[in-house]
C-alpha cells in the first residue's frame, strides 16, 4: 500500500493546492513544498535497503482478468528517479510560489504541477506496463496544462498542443509496442520480463515492437527529429521548464529505455538505433543552443543535447555507459534545474532573458549570480563538480564503445564544446560585463527564488568532491538496474589520472572558450544560420505541414459528410442502413410471415390503423404544426400499445417525452420558415423510395425477430434476483439503476453532453452571428 500511497498523497494534494494558493498566498509555495519533501524523505529511507541489493514489489489488483495491475517496482533506478522528482520538486514548489506570487491563477499552477509530480512518480515506479502507460499519458496531459499556463497567449496554446500531439502520438505507438511485448512475454509486469530477454530478442515481432516502443521514448525525450517541441515548450512559466523540461518529464523516455534495457537491449538493432539517434540528437541539439540569445532557448537545446547523450549511452549499454547514465541523470538534474530557475529569476527581475539586453547583473543580484555560475560550471564539465565526473564517464563510455568508437567520441567532444560555450552564454553574459540600465529596477530575488538554485548547485559541488556519497548509496545500484546485473565494478572518483578522457576534456574546454569568444560573429555567419534552419526549423515546419495537412483532410471530409443539411444526414444514414442491414437480412436469414393475424384484438387493429393514418398525415401535412401533431398521435398511440403489452414504465416515459417534445418543437417552429415546396418531384420520389425501403426493412427485421424463439433466461434471472439482490420489484428500474447502471451512466453522460451542446448551439451560435455582423459592419 505504501508506494501507491506515496503517489496518491501527491494527487490528493493537487486538489488541495489551489486552496493553499488562495488562502496562504505568500507562503503557499513553502507550505506545499512540504508535500514533495515528505515523500522525498520517505523514499530516502529506502536507500540503505536498496543499496544493500534489495528490491521492493507491491501489487494492487486493478483489472485482473486483463492482467492489468496497479503494481510497483522499486529498485536503484526507480529510487534515483523518485528522489530526483520529489527532491527537485520540493524546490520547484518553493520557487513557483515566489515566481508566480500575486498571479491570480497560481492555484491552477499548483494543481497541475502536483498532478504532474504524482504522474511522473507513477511512471518511474510502475511495474505493470499498462499502469506505466497511464501515468505516462497523465504526464503528457498535465504538461499540456502547464505549458499552456499563459493560455491567453497564442504561442502558449500552440506550444502546448504541439508538445501534446508529438508526445501523445509517440505514446500511442508505445502502447501498441507494449501490447506486443506483453503478448511475446505473456506478462504485463516488467519485473517478470527481465528473465525473458532472449525470447524477446529472438521473436519475429521484435523489430516492429522495438520501433513502436522507441517511438514513445524518442518523442517524450525530444530525440531528433522530434526535438522541436522542447524549445517550443519554453512558453511555459519557468518553474515548469525547470521541472518538466529539464529534470523530470523529458527524462521519462530515457527512464523507459533504461528500464527496458535488460529486456530489449543488447541486440544489434537496439544498439544501432538507440546509439545513432542519441548521438545525432546530442550533437545537433548542442549546436542549436548557440543559435539563440534567449536564455531559456539556450538551456532547452542544451537539454536536448543531454537527452541525446543519455540515449546514446543506453544504446551502448556497457559498464562505463550505464554508470555514466546514472551520474549524468543526477548531475544534469542538479545543474539544469538550477540554471533554469536562475534564468527565470533573471527574467523575473530584469524583465527580459535575452542575453543581448542584459549584462553585469552580478552587482545587483549577487546570490543568484553566484549559484548560477556554479551550476554553469557543472554544466561545462569543470572539475571538481559533478558535471565533470559525468562528462568524463561519457568520454570513457564513448572511447570503449563496441560500435564505431571513433565517430562517437568525435561527436561527443563536438557536442561538449558547444555545451561549454552555452554555459558561458548563460552564466557570463547576464552576470558579468558592464551593467546596463534597465527600465525595471533590478534587485536581488526573494529567498524563495534562490534557495532552489543554491541547494542544487551546492549539491553539484559536494557530490563532485565526495562522489562516494552517491556512488555506494544510489548511483551504482541505479546503474546496475540499467545493466540488468546485480553489481558493477566501475566506481566513481574525481581524479582518474592523466588519461585520454582528461586530455579530451581539456581540448573540449579550450575549444568551447574559443567558440564562446567568437560567438557573436559565429552566430551570424551564413553557414551557421543554414545549419540552424535545417536542423532546428525544418523538423518543426515538417510537423506544422503535417498538422495542417491532417486538418485540411479532416475539413474536406467533414464538408463532404457534415454538409449541414439535416435531410442529407438522414439520407446518408438511412440509405446506409437499408443497404447494409437489408443485405445482411436477405442473405443471412429466411424471412417468413410467422405471425398469425387471428389472435389480434379489434382494438389493437384500431390503434394500428390510427398510427398508420397519423403517419400518412405527417407525410402529407402542409405545415410543420400539423406534421408535429400527427407525429404526436403516433407517439401516444404507441404508448397505448406499451400499456396493453404491460410495459407501464415505457408508456409513461413515452407520454412524457411526447409532451415535452411538443413544447420543444413549438419553441423551435417559431424560428423555422414555412414549409416550402421547392423540392423537385425527382427528389421527392428518391426520398419516398428510401423511406419506404427503410420501413420495409424494419418490418422485415421485426418479423425475423419474432421467428426466433424467445429465450427467457435473462428475464427469469432479473425476475428472480431483482428483489433478492437489488431490493426492488420494478425490474425495469432495477435494471436501469443497478444491474446495468454503467450503461445508464453512459447514457446520462450523453444526455449531459448533448444538453451542453444544444445550449451552446442556441446561445453561442447567436452570439457568433452577432459578432460576424459587428465585424462586417
Amino acid at each position: 500500500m505504501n508506494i501507491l500511497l506515496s503517489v496518491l498523497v501527491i494527487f490528493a494534494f493537487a486538489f488541495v493546492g489551489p486552496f493553499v494558493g488562495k488562502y496562504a498566498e505568500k507562503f503557499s509555495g513553502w507550505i506545499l513544498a512540504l508535500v514533495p519533501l515528505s515523500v522525498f524523505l520517505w523514499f530516502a529511507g529506502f536507500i540503505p535497503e536498496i543499496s544493500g541489493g534489495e528490491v521492493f514489489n507491491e501489487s494492487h489488483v486493478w483489472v485482473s482478468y486483463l492482467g492489468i495491475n496497479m503494481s510497483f517496482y522499486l529498485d536503484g533506478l526507480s529510487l534515483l528517479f523518485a528522489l530526483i522528482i520529489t527532491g527537485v520538486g520540493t524546490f520547484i514548489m518553493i520557487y513557483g510560489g515566489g515566481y508566480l506570487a500575486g498571479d491570480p491563477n497560481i492555484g491552477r499552477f499548483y494543481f497541475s504541477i502536483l498532478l504532474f509530480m504524482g504522474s511522473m512518480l507513477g511512471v518511474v515506479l510502475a511495474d505493470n506496463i499498462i499502469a506505466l502507460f497511464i501515468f505516462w499519458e497523465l504526464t503528457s496531459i498535465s504538461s499540456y496544462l502547464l505549458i499552456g499556463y499563459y493560455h491567453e497567449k497564442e504561442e502558449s496554446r500552440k506550444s502546448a498542443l504541439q508538445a501534446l500531439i508529438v508526445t501523445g502520438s509517440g505514446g500511442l505507438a508505445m502502447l501498441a509496442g507494449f501490447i506486443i511485448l506483453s503478448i511475446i512475454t505473456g506478462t504485463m509486469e516488467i519485473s517478470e520480463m527481465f528473465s525473458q530477454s532472449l525470447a524477446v530478442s529472438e521473436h519475429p515481432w521484435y523489430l516492429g515492437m522495438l520501433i513502436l516502443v522507441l517511438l514513445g521514448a524518442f518523442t517524450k525525450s525530444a530525440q531528433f527529429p522530434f526535438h522541436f517541441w522542447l524549445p517550443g515548450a519554453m512558453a511555459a512559466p519557468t518553474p515548469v521548464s525547470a521541472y518538466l523540461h529539464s529534470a523530470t518529464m523529458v527524462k521519462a523516455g530515457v527512464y523507459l529505455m533504461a528500464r527496458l534495457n535488460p529486456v530489449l537491449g543488447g541486440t544489434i538493432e537496439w544498439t544501432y538505433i538507440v546509439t545513432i539517434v542519441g548521438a545525432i540528437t546530442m550533437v545537433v541539439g548542442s549546436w542549436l543552443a548557440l543559435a539563440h540569445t534567449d536564455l531559456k532557448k539556450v538551456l532547452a537545446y542544451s537539454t536536448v543535447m543531454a537527452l541525446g547523450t543519455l540515449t546514446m549511452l543506453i544504446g551502448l549499454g556497457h559498464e562505463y555507459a550505464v554508470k555514466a547514465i546514472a551520474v549524468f541523470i543526477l548531475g544534469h538534474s542538479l545543474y539544469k534545474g538550477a540554471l533554469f530557475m536562475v534564468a527565470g529569476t533573471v527574467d523575473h527581475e530584469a524583465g527580459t532573458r535575452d542575453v543581448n539586453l542584459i549584462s553585469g547583473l552580478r552587482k545587483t543580484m549577487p546570490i543568484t549570480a553566484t549559484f548560477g555560475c556554479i551550476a554553469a560550471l557543472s554544466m561545462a564539465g569543470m572539475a571538481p563538480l559533478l558535471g565533470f565526473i559525468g562528462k568524463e564517464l561519457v568520454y570513457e563510455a564513448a572511447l570503449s564503445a563496441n560500435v564505431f568508437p571513433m565517430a562517437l567520441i568525435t561527436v561527443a567532444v563536438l557536442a561538449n564544446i558547444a555545451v561549454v560555450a552555452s554555459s558561458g552564454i548563460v552564466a557570463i553574459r547576464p552576470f558579468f560585463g558592464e551593467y546596463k540600465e534597465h527600465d525595471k529596477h533590478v534587485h536581488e530575488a526573494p529567498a524563495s527564488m534562490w534557495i532552489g538554485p543554491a541547494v542544487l548547485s551546492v549539491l553539484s559541488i559536494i557530490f563532485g568532491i565526495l562522489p562516494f556519497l552517491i556512488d555506494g548509496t544510489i548511483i551504482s545500484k541505479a546503474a546496475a538496474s540499467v545493466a540488468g546485473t546485480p553489481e558493477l565494478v566501475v566506481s566513481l572518483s574525481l581524479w582518474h589520472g592523466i588519461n585520454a578522457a582528461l586530455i579530451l576534456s581539456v581540448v573540449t574546454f579550450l575549444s568551447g572558450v574559443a567558440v564562446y569568444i567568437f560567438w557573436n560573429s559565429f552566430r551570424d555567419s551564413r553557414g551557421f544560420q543554414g545549419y540552424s534552419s535545417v536542423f532546428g526549423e525544418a523538423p518543426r515546419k515538417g510537423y506544422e505541414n503535417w498538422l495542417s495537412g491532417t486538418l485540411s483532410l479532416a475539413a474536406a471530409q467533414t464538408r463532404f459528410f457534415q454538409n449541414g443539411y439535416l435531410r442529407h444526414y438522414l439520407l446518408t444514414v438511412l440509405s446506409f442502413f437499408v443497404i447494409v442491414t437489408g443485405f445482411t437480412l436477405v442473405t443471412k436469414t429466411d424471412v417468413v410471415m410467422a405471425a398469425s393475424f387471428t389472435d389480434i384484438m379489434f382494438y389493437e387493429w384500431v390503434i394500428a390503423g390510427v398510427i398508420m393514418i397519423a403517419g400518412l398525415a405527417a407525410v402529407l401535412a402542409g405545415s410543420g404544426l400539423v406534421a408535429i401533431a400527427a407525429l404526436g398521435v403516433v407517439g401516444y398511440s404507441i404508448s397505448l400499445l406499451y400499456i396493453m403489452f404491460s410495459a407501464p414504465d415505457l408508456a409513461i416515459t413515452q407520454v412524457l417525452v411526447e409532451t415535452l417534445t411538443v413544447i420543444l418543437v413549438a419553441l423551435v417552429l417559431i424560428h423555422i420558415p414555412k414549409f416550402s415546396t421547392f423540392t423537385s418531384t425527382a427528389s421527392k420520389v428518391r426520398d419516398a423510395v428510401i423511406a419506404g425501403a427503410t420501413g420495409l426493412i424494419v418490418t422485415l427485421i421485426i418479423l425475423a425477430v419474432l421467428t426466433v424463439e424467445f429465450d427467457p433466461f435473462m428475464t427469469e434471472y432479473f425476475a428472480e434476483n431483482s428483489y433478492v439482490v437489488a431490493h426492488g420489484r420494478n425490474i425495469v428500474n432495477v435494471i436501469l439503476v443497478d444491474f446495468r447502471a454503467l450503461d445508464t451512466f453512459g447514457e446520462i453522460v450523453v444526455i449531459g453532453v448533448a444538453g451542453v451542446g444544444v445550449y451552446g448551439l442556441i446561445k453561442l451560435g447567436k452570439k457568433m452571428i452577432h459578432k460576424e455582423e459587428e465585424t462586417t459592419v
Partner: protein
Amino acid sequence: MNSVILKTAARLLFPLLLVFSIFLFFRGHNEPGGGFIGGLVGASAFVLFAIAFGTEVTRKLLRIDPRILIGWGLFFALVSGIMSMMAGDAFFTGQWIFPVLFGSEIHLGTPLIFDIGVYLVVVGFTLAVIFALEEEN
C-alpha cells in the same frame, strides 16, 4: 403568454407536479416510475411555470442554473459508483443498508443515489434546452 387561467393553473399545478415527480421517483423501485420519469415530470413542472410566467421568474425559482444541475447529476451518479469501489466491490455494485424507521425496515442503497443523479441530469437537460429556446423568442 398572458393568461389568467394558465397562471392560476400553473401556480396550483407546479407544487403538485413537483410532489408527483418525487413520488414517482421513489415509487420507481417497486412500481412504474424512477429517476427518468420523475425527472421528466419535475422538468414539466418548471416548463409549465415558465410558459405561464416566463423563464426569468422560473430561473429564479429554480435558483440553480440547469446546466449546473447536469453536472451535479453526473457527480451523484459517479459517486454512487465510487462508493461501491470504496466498499471493495466492482464499480456500480449496489451497496445497501437497512435502517429501521418508525418500526418499518427501509432499503437504502447506492442505486438510490444513482437514480438521484439520473433525475437531476434529466431535469437539467430538459430545462437547459427549453429555457434557452424560450429565451430566444
